[in-house]
């Protein structure tokens, strides 16, 4: 049994006056790919941002490799070895592709080299000098994933990496996730598209109204389809 890498217990989070997370509990083990499924507004993105320290007000416990992070600033959390690929991708318009790629500092050894990232995403090499936001949506997503692979962070938070992308790009991102899992990275994935999630994940947590309501192993996904349709309202 692999070690628990991330342990979330009773996580609460607020945006100003609105109380978004109401005691979220789940675990991610080292080397796993785990997804958070759920409807819009269930609290998936807020959970990701809370782990990364991007939500101002949070309470409860988020332990990364045994270290409590719930009171840490986001830059300290990054140096422990967690990196986020945000839902809006966060590509910087005033930086070119190479500058975007090189922006996140190295936090630990073991990240991918630029050559390896270019192997995964050849488009990034071709467009190295382009302004970051001049890339297509798919290329921007590759850049947003590529730049956090460089840093040596071992837990990657990918927030809806396939949203709005063409099927061929979705497949490429699926291959990438399986490839980085092979290399020992741990991935927490937020997905609306559970057909895609099923092709990459080991386990799924289902969120609703700011709490985790269920856990499904990927191997048991088929037998739980009806329940899942109910949760997701599809």
């Amino acid at each position, binding site marked *: 049994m692999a070690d628990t890498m991330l342990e979330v217990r009773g996580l609460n989070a607020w945006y100003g006056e609105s109380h978004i997370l109401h005691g979220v509990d789940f675990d991610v083990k080292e080397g796993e790919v785990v997804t958070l499924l759920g409807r819009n507004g269930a609290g998936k993105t807020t959970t990701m941002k809370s782990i990364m320290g991007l939500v101002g007000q949070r309470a409860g416990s988020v332990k990364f490799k045994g270290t409590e992070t719930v009171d840490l600033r*986001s*830059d300290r959390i*990054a140096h422990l070895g967690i990196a986020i690929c945000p839902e809006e991708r*966060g590509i910087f318009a*005033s930086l070119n592709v190479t500058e975007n790629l090189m922006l996140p500092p190295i936090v630990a050894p073991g990240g991918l080299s630029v050559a390896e990232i270019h192997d995964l995403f050849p488009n990034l090499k071709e467009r190295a000098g382009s302004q970051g936001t001049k890339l297509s949506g798919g290329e921007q997503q590759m850049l947003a994933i590529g730049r956090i692979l460089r840093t040596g962070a071992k837990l990657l938070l990918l927030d809806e990496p396939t949203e709005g992308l063409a099927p061929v790009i979705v497949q490429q991102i699926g291959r990438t996730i399986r490839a980085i899992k092979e290399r020992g990275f741990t991935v927490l994935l937020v997905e609306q598209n559970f057909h895609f999630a099923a092709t990459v994940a080991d386990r799924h947590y289902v969120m609703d109204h700011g709490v985790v309501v269920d856990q499904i192993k990927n191997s048991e996904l088929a037998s739980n389809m009806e329940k899942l349709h109910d949760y997701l309202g599809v």
Partner: protein
Amino acid sequence: MLMVFGYNLGPILGQGVLGVVNGAFYALLSLGLAVIFGLLNIINFAHGALYMLGAVVAWFLLNYLGIGYWPSLFIAPVIVGAFGVLLERTMISKLYKLDHLYGLLLTFGIALIVEGLARNQFGSSGLPYSVPESLRGATRLGFMIMPTYRLWVVVASFVICITTWLVLEKTPIGATLRAATENAALVQSFGVNVPRLVMLTYGAGVALAALAGVMAAPVYSVNPNMGSDVIIVVFAVVVIGGMGSILGSILTGFGLGLLEGFTKFLYPEASGVVVFVLMIVVLLTRPAGLFGKAS
């Protein structure tokens, strides 16, 4: 003698070049303001007072410690920059989450206090600061004879401006700064200590103002009002160039100095207002400034 449209070209160029000396200071000061505004979202009204403080520190170093112009070019910006870091840590950093207006009011207050203290100490007549030995005399430029010190000011400030621009546009630290200007929270979540970056950026912007102050001391004498005299024009430069645009500040700073110089020759009565007339025209036609991006 060169004649164009019935004017003798020599004096026009002469006034233009003297205008560029003022423009050199506009460029240095608006550059610091632009960098600070870009990252901190603070309109640093204390900039003029900190420029004056640079000159005052240089005067102190000379008259109390016997430290001359050349070392002061380095020491005064470090001292005033450290003072800026202190201001940022203890006061300005508390205002980042509030409207721009609060930062403007705070820094305006700081400017009044610093200038008031200086006036209390030195009166308002100004303290002499002589031109360093090696830059005395005049240099023949062909169409005019120019005081060597002023020529040095133009060249040095041009080099400083271009260096700053290169650092911001072509280096990793510059890329981090630009990224933090766009989305500080995300840059911090990558592991960059953004509060420290902000503090050092304010310190660097302030040090740039102090450096301009040291360079200005032999030109305008050290006067408690020297900052408030220049800062209004510098704000006009920033507005015309485009808030937060680095290249815009540099080009507009030099350009407006030149424009003022020409106006002084063609219609001297207008030389004090030409910058503000241009500012009004720019605000009406291109509200984001000549080099700014419309948001």
